[in-house]
């Protein structure tokens, strides 16, 4: 019950922009923001691009040289008229490797779990 309440709270907090980035476009002008580790969803010419956090899209004004769709970046900037004017940007080129390590970790867990846990008639049980 508590777990469902917690998950419900996160859904509400995300929908209202209390957590996450959904509330960024609605922020007052000149609000300073940091958008951490978001994916480049689209590049529009030399000075505009769109970042995605899930289905939330945030338009950014900033140089697009060296930026490609699918890149992960962290940027800092200020909100102006519903978009973010980039002041600094930090690329995160190792995110792809991190995802591969995530898959390797999943495989490791699948291999390890049967070494410590077995099935019992009454449920799962520790080995030994």
């Amino acid at each position: 019950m508590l777990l469902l309440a917690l998950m419900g709270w996160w859904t509400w907090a995300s929908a209202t922009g209390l957590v996450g980035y959904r509330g960024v476009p609605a922020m007052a002008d000149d609000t300073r923001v940091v958008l951490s580790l978001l994916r480049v969803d689209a590049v529009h010419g030399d000075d505009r691009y769109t970042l995605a956090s899930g289905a939330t899209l945030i338009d950014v004004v900033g140089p697009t040289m060296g930026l490609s769709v699918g890149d992960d970046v962290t940027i800092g900037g200020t909100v102006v008229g519903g978009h973010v004017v980039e002041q600094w940007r930090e690329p995160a080129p190792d995110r792809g490797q991190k995802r591969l390590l995530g898959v390797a970790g999943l495989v490791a867990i699948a291999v390890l779990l049967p070494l410590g846990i077995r099935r019992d008639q009454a449920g799962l049980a520790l080995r030994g």
Partner: protein
Amino acid sequence: MADLVTHLCTALLPGALVRSPLVVVAATGAALPDLLGRAVPLTLDGARRAGAPIPEAAIWPWVGLHEPFGWTLVAILIGQLFVRRDRRRVVLALWAGGALHTLLDLIQGHHGQGYLLLAPFSLRTFELGWTGSEATVGWAVPLAIATAAAWVVRVFATRSRA
């Protein structure tokens, strides 16, 4: 967040010194916040972007399970899958793993966009900022090799004693 291999190694490397099936449970606990709070939403988001009819709201609730209140409750739920005599030990081992996970994540820096450790009771974010968010990618493979070596030594030592 650190990568999953490094998270697993934080429990498995010292666990090579301990002869208990709880080491595997603690390692699972160390991975649990990312499995639920990152892998599930990323998978759902990937499927959504590929055209699956998944509403964005179906992704949000999972994110909260990465934070302490979330994985603490999930650990209790997982504990109920175990036979009565093992439940308490399993939950404690999962909590220990989850605490290792959060401690490792905390050493990273995200330019002030830290972790909501006290959510939903507070929206204050925490991070120590000692390393970058991708720093563990470089450690993961050497750490995995060291962990595997420690376990090989342990298995041989156990067999030679038997």
